[in-house]
Structure formats: C-alpha cells, structure tokens
C-alpha cells in the first residue's frame, strides 16, 4: 500500500511539471493550429538560461523562472514574425507548420549543441536532492516544488483565459478564427500574444525542468512524443485536458517504471500516443476533430 502511494505521489509531482511543459504546446495549437514540434527544444532553451544563471551567479532556478519565461516569450514573438506570420494563409497550413517547427527544432538543437555541447546538464539547488518524509513515503522536494509551481502557473493561465477580455478573445479565436476576426478581435495580435505566452510557458517549464530532469540539446526528441501524447490525450487546445492527460500518463508511467522497468516507462507515453491517435484522436476534452 505504501509503495502504491509512493509511486502515485512521484507520478503526480512529475505530472504537474509535464502538464506545464505541455500547456504551451496545447495553447499554441488551439489558437494557431500550429503543432509546435520545436516546443520541447525551446523548453531546453529555457533550461539553459536557468542553468547559466545558476552556474554563473548561483541564482535559484525557481527565482529564475520569470526571467526564462519572459526571455522565451520574446523569442516566441520573433519566431512568430519570422516563420509563421507569412504562412497564415497558406493552403497546406497545418502540414506546413509541422514541418517548419520540425526544422525549427533542429535549428534550436543545433544552436544549443554548438553553444553548450551535448553534455548532460542539471541545476542542483539544495532542494533538488532533499525530500520530505511522511511515514515510509518520501516526497522529493524538487519534484514537489516543481509540480506545485507548475500547477500554480497553469491555474493563473486558466483564470486569465476565462475571465480577462484578452482571454475571451483567445478562446473565441481558438473556436472559430474567422468569426472572431469578423466580430472585432484582432486575430493577428491574438496569435502573436498566444504564441508568445505559449513559448513563455516553455521557458517557465525549462526552469523547473532544469532541476527535475537532466538535459542536453538532443533530449527534446524524447520529450516531443511524450508531450504530444499528453496533449493529444487531453485534446489538443484544451489546457484542462493537458493537465489531466499529464497526470494520468505520468502516474501510469511511474507504475510501469517501478513494476516493469525504467525503459518501459518512456515507452508508455509513445504507446499511449499511438493508441489515442487511433482510438480517439480528439482526446478526452478535445472539440476539434479536424485535427485528425
């Protein structure tokens, strides 16, 4: 019983971080129909920003989170203007953007690789290796903090989307871009905004990832399928779905990892992705079957 509780807690804490990693991906797809394969590579970008600050000035990774988020959001604006703005009216838009973001992922990987080499990195604040104990169950502080911060950020994002005027506009654009435009929403601005928020979330996730996982530039290939499975399970474009998908899958993966073997825990995500795409492509909360 204690073992099950232990695995559950580890899975949930990790699930929180994965939810944050996936939320930006989901938002960007929802508003712009861009399947951003470069999202994990940009998360790694955020992780390096945090890592550098930690190594050079001993700045705490969580304290560095806003900086990483804002920096990556700015990167997002530039990327949007350079890569996606002109594609907005392309006929094969969705396929085109997948390939473009794939190219972008390679560029980011290559750039980070030439700057920082492919050595495994990790930031090591004190809490990264510490843990709370409740009876026999231990909760690693690093994962717990990262999970809680992630969920707090996602909660703030959800409130913003639900109650602010801009959030209202973002949701309307997600549902029907043309209609939103015709009703007075500046969809160009909303697109840039949503893209910037999405990439900013990648930056924020990067800060947390930096002490939860070890990372190197090529690591993002492992994450893309993992995040895709989370986002697709939840339903592309649905933030709530992403959170639920992340929690479910990472708990399942934690059980698989403990009981069957660590190798198979990663496989859980990929197999899940396969199965979801085939059985229910719109995901749990998705309302957009045209994705399929």
């Amino acid at each position, binding site marked *: 019983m204690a073992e099950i509780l232990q695995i559950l807690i580890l899975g949930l804490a990790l699930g929180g971080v994965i939810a944050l990693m996936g939320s930006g991906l989901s938002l960007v797809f929802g508003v712009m129909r861009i399947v951003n394969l470069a999202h994990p590579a940009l998360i790694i970008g955020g992780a390096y920003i945090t890592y550098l600050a930690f190594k050079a000035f001993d700045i705490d990774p969580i304290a560095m989170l806003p900086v990483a988020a804002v920096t990556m959001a700015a990167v997002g604006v530039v990327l949007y203007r350079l890569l996606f703005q002109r594609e907005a*009216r*392309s006929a094969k838009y969705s396929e085109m953007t997948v390939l473009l973001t794939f190219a972008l992922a390679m560029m980011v990987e290559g750039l980070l690789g030439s700057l920082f080499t492919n050595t495994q990195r990790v930031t090591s604040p004190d809490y990264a290796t510490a843990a709370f104990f409740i009876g026999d169950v231990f909760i690693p502080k690093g994962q717990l903090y990262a999970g809680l911060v992630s969920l707090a950020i996602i909660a703030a994002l959800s409130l913003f989307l639900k109650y602010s005027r801009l959030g*209202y*506009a973002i949701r*309307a654009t997600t*549902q*029907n871009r*043309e*209609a*939103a*435009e*015709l*009703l*007075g*929403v*500046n*969809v*160009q601005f909303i697109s840039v905004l949503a893209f910037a928020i999405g990439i900013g979330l990648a930056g924020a996730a990067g800060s947390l990832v930096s002490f939860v996982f070890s990372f190197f530039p090529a690591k993002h290939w492992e994450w893309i399928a993992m995040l895709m499975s989370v986002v697709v399970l939840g339903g592309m474009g649905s933030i709530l779905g992403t959170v639920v998908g992340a929690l479910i899958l990472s708990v399942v993966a934690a059980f698989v990892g403990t009981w069957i073997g660590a190798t198979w825990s990663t496989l859980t995500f990929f197999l899940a992705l396969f199965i979801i795409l085939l059985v229910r492509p719109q995901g749990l909360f998705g*309302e957009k079957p045209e994705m399929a």
Partner: protein
Amino acid sequence: MTKLLEVTNITAGYGDGPAIIDGAHLTVEPGKVHCIIGPNGAGKSTLLKAICGMLSIRKGDVVFKGERLNGLRPDQILRKGICFVPQERALFAKMTVRENLRMGGFILDDKKELERRIEGILERFPILRERADQHAGTMSGGQQQTLAMARTLIIKPDIVMLDEPSLGLAPKVVQEMFDIMKMMSAEGVTVLLVEQNALMGLKNADWGVVLDLGRTLFEGPAATVLADPRIQELYLGGKKAA
C-alpha cells in the same frame, strides 16, 4: 444622392494567387438593400471579403463615409460600422446563442449596455430567446442564419454585408431571411447582399449589381436590372423572368 460606401476599381485575390476581382466597382446608398449577382466564380464573395478587410486590396479604393478603408484589418473596419456575415455564418458552434450574441458585442466596452442590447435582440427574435441557452451548432440552418444576422445588429452597424444567406435553406425559410433583411433596412441599416439566386435576390432588393469575371458589369436599380433583356439572358436563366 449620398453615398455611404464607394468602391472604385479594386483588384484583390488570395495570398500571392491570381486576382479574383479586377476592376470591380460598387456604390452603396444608405438605407437600401443592395444585391450583387453573378455566376459562380465571378468574385462576389471575394468582393465582400475585400471590403471587410479579410483580403488585402491590391489596387483601387474602398471609401466609407469619406474615409479610405484600404489596408485596415477586419476588426478595425468593424469598428467603423461595417459588419460581414460570411457564407459559413461565423458562429461559435460550441457556444450558446446568448454567448454568440455576447461575442457579437466584443467591441463594445460597456457591459451593461451590451446585456441590454442582447435583451433587445432576444425580444425581437423569439426563436433566439427560445434557444438562448442552446449551443449554436445544434440549431437548424435557418435559425443559425437568423442568429448570424441578428448578431450583427448588436453593434448597430451602418452596413451589414451578407454572403449568400439563403444557401442551403428551404424556400420558405429563405423568404424569412429576406424579411429580416427588409426589417433591417427599414431600421436604417444598409444591406449589401450576395445572392446566387439572382431572381429572388433582385426582387427583394432596391439596387442591383452584376459582377462577372471579377468586374462590375453593371449597377442600377434592381427593377431595371431585372427588366434588362441581356441580363435576363446571361444571368437570370432565359427570357421567362419578368
């Protein structure tokens, strides 16, 4: 004769593609129902999209109340008072009727005023009140079209442009749509309509415009357009019409 909107000699197309309309012109007078007719691919929808800012205008001018609209975004043009309902009706299928109406007033800053206007719309269109809390996507075609047209009234626009409001509707329902249009124009809202069913459209309009191959061939009072033998032959399906 006062002109509300004047389109002179415009050229527009999609992306880098060929020009769909090339040399189209149009005059819109306040308070009337204007009907654009022409065969498939003539550029009727494209013309409306160019006016409302969804397509960039390559040449020519769109002048509204003496102000050039070229290069403005759809949201900016909407704020000037031109509202467009595309063929797909631009509804939010997963939002309720009431939420759709609320989105219709997105550009209004006064929330209380918005709610008051929504009430007014529901008052005038009983069918919408009946369905107020139903998802727009679950309604019939005619009801959806009614909602799309009613929604434009929330911001009290000067011009409402409708792209084939009769598309896919039963004949009886089509007449209801035209009745709504007449009501709109009686209230001083100018209607600019694209209609595939040329005869029906012209009969319900004050002003007719014939568009083909991206050019305006002719514009004039609807009755004159209807009566012209050449137009009857080319665009109204033979000489039987009168």
